[in-house]
C-alpha cells in the first residue's frame, strides 16, 4: 500500500470514505467479468471536488486511477491494474434536476439505471437504454461502456441519450462537454467521451435525454421449428420497414431453462422463440402487429402468442430478463459473449457458434438482441471441472473471430475493456488504432486514466501492458 498516496487522498476525501482493507481491495479488484486485478486504494467521493482531489493525488504519485460505477461491466473495463486508485461513484447518486417539458435530466453518475426510470415514470418518461443489469448498473457505467439493452433497437444505445457531461480530466480540471443546448460549437467531445471506458476522465454529472412512454405497447411471442426460420423472420420484419421496440431471440436450450424457472408456458419443443415488442400510437401498433404476425407465419411460425394484458407482457419479459439466472439451473458458471453480426448472416453465425461449442465440449445457450444482430452466446460450465476454463476461453475466441469474419464487430454493448483488447486488430488496422490512441492522448496525456484497456500494446502510447489472470486475451 502506498501510504503517502493514501494520506494525500485522505486530505481531500474524509478518511471514512478512503478504504484500504484487504477485503475491500479484493472486492474492488474485479468487476462482473472473471478478470481479477489489484486495487491499491478505494475511495468514495461525494462531490466533483473530491473526484478532482482523488485524480490529482493519483496523478501526482504516478498511479493509475479507475472510475467505477456498480461494477457490473462484463469486459473488465473497471478492473484496476497495478494497485490503481479506484474512484467509486456509487455514492454520487442524486438526480439533480428534471426538465419534464423538454425531457432531459441532470444526474450524478452513481444513479442506477432503473432508479432513474422509476423516478421519472410518473412524468410519463423513461431512460431508454435498458441493459439486463439495469437494476444494478449505474448511469456513469452506461456512459463509460455506451451500454445497450433490448429496447435500444428502436431508440439507440446510450450515446444517443447523453446530451452533456461534466468530466474531471486527468489534470484535475473540470470540463462540461455538450449539454441541453443542441449545437454547441466545435468538436463533439461529448460524443467522443461516451464509450471511452474510463480512459478519457471521470464523469461527475450526466445530462440524459428522457424518452416519452408509448401510449400503446404490444408484446408477442412467436416460436419456430428452426433457428434459421426465426432469424429470417427478423430480417424480413426489418426489410418490411418496421423497427419494433424490441426483437429478441432465445434458442431451445435457453427456452427450456427459462421455462423451468418461471413457468410462463413457453414452448419447450421450439428450436427458437422470438419476443417482439411494438410500441407507439395505437393504430400504428396494431397495423405493425398484424404485419409482423403475417411475416412470422410466412416464415413458418408455429404459434403466435400476443400478451393480452400487462401481467402477461411482464411474464414474457421476465422470461427474457431472467435468462441468466435461469441458466444457473443447468451449470453453476457461465461466460456471456457479446458480438454483432449483420442480420442476414445470423443463421450462419449461429450454426458456427453451436459447432464451436460442440467441438470444445461445452453447452451454449443463445439469448440475444436479434433485431440488431447483437449475439449473446452463453457458454455454461462448471469451473470446478479441470481444464474447463481453457476450453471456455478457446471457444470464446473462436466465436469472436467467427463474428468479425462474418462482417461483424467485436462488441455491441459490453465494450472492449481487457477482455477483447487484443482482438482489436481483427477489426482495425494500425492506422485506425493510432487514431483511437490519438483521441486518448488528447483527453488524457498522462495515460493514467484507466490504462491498459481497449487499445492493444502497439497503439497504447507507452501504456505498460499487462494481462491479469482470468483474461483470455
Amino acid at each position: 500500500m502506498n501510504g503517502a498516496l493514501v494520506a494525500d487522498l485522505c486530505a481531500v476525501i474524509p478518511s471514512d470514505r478512503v478504504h484500504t482493507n484487504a477485503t475491500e481491495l479484493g472486492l474492488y479488484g474485479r468487476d462482473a467479468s472473471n478478470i481479477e486485478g489489484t486495487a491499491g486504494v478505494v475511495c468514495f467521493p461525494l462531490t466533483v471536488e473530491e473526484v478532482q482531489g482523488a485524480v490529482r493525488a493519483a496523478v501526482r504519485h504516478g498511479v493509475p486511477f479507475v472510475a467505477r460505477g456498480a461494477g457490473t461491466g462484463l469486459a473488465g473495463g473497471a478492473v484496476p491494474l497495478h494497485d490503481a486508485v479506484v474512484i467509486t461513484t456509487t455514492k454520487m447518486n442524486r438526480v439533480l434536476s428534471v426538465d419534464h417539458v423538454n425531457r432531459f435530466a441532470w444526474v450524478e453518475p452513481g444513479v442506477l439505471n432503473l432508479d432513474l426510470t422509476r423516478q421519472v415514470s410518473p412524468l410519463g418518461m423513461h431512460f431508454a437504454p435498458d441493459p439486463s443489469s439495469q437494476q444494478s448498473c449505474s448511469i456513469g457505467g452506461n456512459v463509460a461502456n455506451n451500454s445497450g439493452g433490448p429496447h435500444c433497437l428502436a431508440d439507440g444505445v446510450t450515446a444517443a441519450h447523453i446530451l452533456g457531461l461534466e468530466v474531471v480530466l486527468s489534470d484535475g480540471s473540470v470540463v462540461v462537454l455538450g449539454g441541453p443546448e443542441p449545437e454547441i460549437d466545435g468538436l463533439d467531445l461529448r460524443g467522443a467521451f461516451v464509450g471511452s471506458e474510463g480512459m478519457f476522465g471521470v464523469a461527475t454529472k450526466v445530462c440524459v435525454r428522457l424518452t416519452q412512454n408509448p401510449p400503446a405497447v404490444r408484446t408477442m411471442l412467436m416460436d419456430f421449428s428452426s433457428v434459421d426460420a426465426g432469424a429470417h423472420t427478423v430480417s424480413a420484419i426489418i426489410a418490411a420497414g418496421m423497427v419494433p421496440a424490441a426483437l429478441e431471440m432465445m434458442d431451445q436450450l435457453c427456452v427450456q431453462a427459462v421455462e423451468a424457472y418461471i413457468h410462463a408456458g413457453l414452448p419447450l419443443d421450439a428450436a427458437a422463440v422470438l419476443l417482439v415488442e411494438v410500441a407507439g400510437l395505437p393504430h400504428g401498433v396494431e397495423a405493425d402487429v398484424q404485419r409482423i404476425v403475417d411475416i412470422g407465419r410466412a416464415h413458418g411460425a408455429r404459434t403466435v402468442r400476443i400478451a393480452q394484458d400487462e401481467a402477461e407482457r411482464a411474464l414474457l419479459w421476465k422470461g427474457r430478463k431472467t435468462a441468466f439466472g435461469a441458466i444457473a439451473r443447468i451449470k453453476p458458471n457461465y461466460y456471456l459473449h457479446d458480438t454483432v453480426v449483420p442480420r442476414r448472416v445470423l443463421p450462419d453465425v449461429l450454426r458456427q457458434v453451436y459447432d464451436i461449442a460442440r467441438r470444445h465440449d461445452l453447452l451454449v445457450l443463445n439469448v440475444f438482441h436479434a433485431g440488431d444482430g447483437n449475439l449473446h452466446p452463453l457458454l455454461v460450465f462448471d469451473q470446478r471441472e479441470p481444464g474447463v476454463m481453457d476450453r471456455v476461453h478457446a471457444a470464446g475466441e473462436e466465436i469472436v473471430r467467427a463474428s468479425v469474419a462474418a462482417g461483424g464487430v467485436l462488441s455491441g454493448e459490453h465494450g472492449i475493456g481487457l477482455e477483447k483488447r487484443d482482438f482489436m486488430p481483427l477489426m482495425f488496422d494500425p492506422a485506425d488504432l493510432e487514431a483511437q490512441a490519438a483521441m486518448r492522448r488528447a483527453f488524457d496525456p498522462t495515460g493514467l486514466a484507466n490504462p491498459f484497456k481497449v487499445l492493444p500494446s502497439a497503439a497504447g502510447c507507452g501504456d505498460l501492458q499487462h494481462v491479469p489472470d482470468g483474461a483470455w486475451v
Partner: protein
Amino acid sequence: MIDLADFAEQVGTDGPVTISGLGTRGGPQPGVRCVRAPDGVDWVQPDEMIVCCGAGTPVDALVAALAEYGQTVALPSGGTVGGALSVGRSDVRRLGYGPVRDVLLQARYVSAAGEVVKAGGPTVKNVSGFDLCRLLVGARGALGFLGEVLLRTRPIPAASQWCCVEAVEPFSTFGSLHRPVSVLWDGARVWVLLEGHPADIDQQASGAGLQAVDGPPPLPSGSRRSLHPADIVTCSGSFIAEVGVGIVHHADAWSSPPRAARVDSLARAVRHEFDPTGRCNPGLDV
C-alpha cells in the same frame, strides 16, 4: 468498398489542403489546394438498414436511391453527404429523427498523414473501441477528409403531415403529442410534423386542434442559434424555434457564446493529435 487510393493521393501528405462538395455549406477554404471525395452509392442493404456511399454523393441523390427501398436517411437535404456530416447540422426533423451524429456508423477517411483510416464499424450496433465517428461529425474536415461512409437508414413512414395551430406558447402543444417529428414555433403559431399511421396522425392532430397545412414555414436565415430548449420563449423578433430541441432560426445575426477555456484547449489538443501541422482546412476554427 470504395477504392480511396486516388483520393488519398490527392490529399497527399503535406501542404495545406481543403475539400469541396457542392459548396452549399460554406465551401472550401479559399486560396488552398482543393480536393473532392468520391461520389456514388456503393451498396444499399435494406434488411440491415445500412447504405454505403462516397462522401461526395449528393444527399438528394442518396435519398432518391434509398426511396426505391422504402427507406431514407436523416441528413438535411442539399449538398453532399460528406458536407452534411462534416458540418453536422440537422434539419427541422431533428426532434424525431435525432441529430446527424447518430447517422454515421462507419467512416473511412483520409488523415492529415494521407493515410486511409477507418472509424466505427459496419453494423447498426457497435461499441468496439472509441467513438471516432462522433468526433468526425461536425469536425468540418479538421481531423481528416471523409471518403466513404456507412449510414444508418430509416423506413419512410406510411404517412406524413404538417399541421399548424395558433399558439402564443409552444409547450402545451408539444406536451400533448407523442413523438412528433418536428414542432416549430414563431411566437404566435406552432407547426407540427406528424408521421406514422394515417389514423394516428388524424387523432393526434384533432386532439391538439391542429389543421393540416402544406409544409413548414420558411426559415429565417440571419442566424442559427443553439439555446437551452426552455429558453426559446425568450426569443423575440422574426424567428422560428425548434421546440424540444432548442435550435432557433432567426432573422438577426448572432454570435455563439465562447467556449470555456479548458474545453477549447481540449478541442485544440484533439485537432493537434490528428493534424499536427494544421494542414486540413487551415484557418477553420473547430
